[in-house]
């Protein structure tokens, strides 16, 4: 025990020598982190890239240019800046800042979090198309897209909501930033990392060869927020620059299943049935919410183990009760520091309580979302023309070239230019 407490600080056992040979005691070197101006530059480049992406997807309508900007973003925010700060991971910082007053949010993180949301509210998901390096990584390797059946797609998409809920819960309780820890491509950006991360990244990349943007579609927690904002965005990507002629050429254009077909109103008999289904689902909604809340709060002892203080308190209790043999590094360090066990327990109890509340809220939210999705799937939609799905479209611009009306526009434009 004595030796351990010395490890913690050490003591001045031997007085520093009085040198007679004129020896100068060297200084401890302190290499500095990058200067703050880099954050300003990054923010500026980010905002310009977002603006460019919006212009390219809505006005220029050129896949080539979008790919160009995407490659730039991949190299700048990915390989040059090692993939950090990124908007997807910034959710963790934001949640921590919102729930923990001691944490100071760096301004650059706020810019990376907020700017794409505002841009999406106005111009759709240009961020996903050409600014996000994670999206770019998956987009460039997509060679043979496989169609994911619509029900499977809808089910898998729920994963992203679950991921978002838990990411916020863990970050808000100060446990860990899940999104950053399991960032699939940061290993490539750094070209450095341990085996687990390489395996994760390479698996995602291999899946991305055949399934378009799997992370973006089924896991990205930031994408979840962007989807909702994109639903109501002021302007958005349109497949055709003018009137849709229903030629069906764009039907297979989208590797992400985001081109939706026109649909007619239901016949009266089916319409009545769908109304009954919707009524049933609305009744089901509070039940789903309650179920989610119950599961979420019941999971709190397990979830709380993500927090190091709770883990330590559990371990110390187990050691004191004689349930486990020996000590871990953490319990050893705790005992050596001579802190009060009772205080640790109290702290663990308060963290567990926060997990109970947070788990319940996350569960209720997920229950409501699942219920809402069911209701939305039962509501008949009337569409006159082929269009890009309001929420699901990444604005990648692949479908433009499939549209004959767009081809005509391009030819007209080139004639105008040569005149």
């Amino acid at each position: 025990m004595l030796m351990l407490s010395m490890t913690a600080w050490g003591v001045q056992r031997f007085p520093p020598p009085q040198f007679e040979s004129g020896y100068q005691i060297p200084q401890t070197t302190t290499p500095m982190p990058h200067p703050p101006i880099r954050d300003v530059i990054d923010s500026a480049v980010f905002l310009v890239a977002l603006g460019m992406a919006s212009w390219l997807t809505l006005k220029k309508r050129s896949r080539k240019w979008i790919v160009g900007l995407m490659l730039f973003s991949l190299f700048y925010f990915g390989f040059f800046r090692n993939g950090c700060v990124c908007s997807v991971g910034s959710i963790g910082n934001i949640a921590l800042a919102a729930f923990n007053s001691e944490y100071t949010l760096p301004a650059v993180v706020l810019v990376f979090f907020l700017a794409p949301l505002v841009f999406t509210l106005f111009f759709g998901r240009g961020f996903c198309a050409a600014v996000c390096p994670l999206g770019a990584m998956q987009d460039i390797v997509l060679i043979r897209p496989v169609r994911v059946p619509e029900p499977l797609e809808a089910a898998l998409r729920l994963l992203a909501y679950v991921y978002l809920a838990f990411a916020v819960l863990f970050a808000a309780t100060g446990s860990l930033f899940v999104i950053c820890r399991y960032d699939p491509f940061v290993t490539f950006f750094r070209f450095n990392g341990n085996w687990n991360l390489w395996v994760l990244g390479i698996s995602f990349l291999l899946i991305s060869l055949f399934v378009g943007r799997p992370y973006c579609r089924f896991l990205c927690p930031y994408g979840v927020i962007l989807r909702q904002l994109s639903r109501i965005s002021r302007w958005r990507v349109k497949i055709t620059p003018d009137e849709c002629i229903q030629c069906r050429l764009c039907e297979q254009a989208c590797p992400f299943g985001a081109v939706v077909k026109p649909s007619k109103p239901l016949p009266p008999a089916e319409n009545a049935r769908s109304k009954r289904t919707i009524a049933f689902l609305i009744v089901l909604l509070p039940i789903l919410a309650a179920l989610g809340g119950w599961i979420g709060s019941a999971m709190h002892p397990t979830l709380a183990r993500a927090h190091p203080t709770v883990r330590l308190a559990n371990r110390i209790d187990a050691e004191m009760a004689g349930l486990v043999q020996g000590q871990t590094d953490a319990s050893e360090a705790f005992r050596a520091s001579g802190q009060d066990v009772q205080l640790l327990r109290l702290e663990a109890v308060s963290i567990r309580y926060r997990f109970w509340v947070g788990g319940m809220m996350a569960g209720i939210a997920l229950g409501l979302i699942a219920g809402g999705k069911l209701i939305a799937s039962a509501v008949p939609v009337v569409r006159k023309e082929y269009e890009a799905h309001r929420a699901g479209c990444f604005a990648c611009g692949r479908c433009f070239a499939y549209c004959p009306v767009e081809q005509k526009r391009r030819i007209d434009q080139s004639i105008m230019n040569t005149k």
Partner: protein
Amino acid sequence: MTQPNKPINRRDFLRDGLWGACFAGLAGTGAVLASKSSQQRFVWQIDPAKCTACGNCATFCVLQESAVKCVHAYQMCGYCDLCTGYYRPEPSALDTAAENQLCPRGAIIRTYVEDPYFQYTIDESLCNGCGKCVKGCAAFGNGSLFLQVRHDLCVNCNECAIAAACPAQAFKRVPADKPYLLKGQG
């Protein structure tokens, strides 16, 4: 700006309302968060008062070579001939032979200063941050060797993998303009 000729239907009205609410919500969130944010950037650092030199720094860093290195507070050092941070217990001779050294990477350079003093310098290109020397120095010496995150190497992950694995919760975020927690300086 209202156009009298354009009828407002319920769907558009609701959509515009929702859009306005979202915009206001984003603006509000931005304002609240901006009040909590600062120009100041934060970086990871080890509090040497809490560090137990457990060895996790060498293995948990996301970089293949850990960004944590041993640093030396020379003004605290006793310049001992028998340095317990340099030599493993009961060395066969007080020389620079590898079998006598505690450091698995041979990253500590021992140079003669004057009788009977020796200077110990860390070659950071070899050091892997395992903390064996830190333990040795603190156990029997002055504790002038300690671990620090080196900011020329650290990529400043949002989620520092070593911080998550640190058993003593010695990792903390410090302002980027004062990125070191050095021993022996006040």
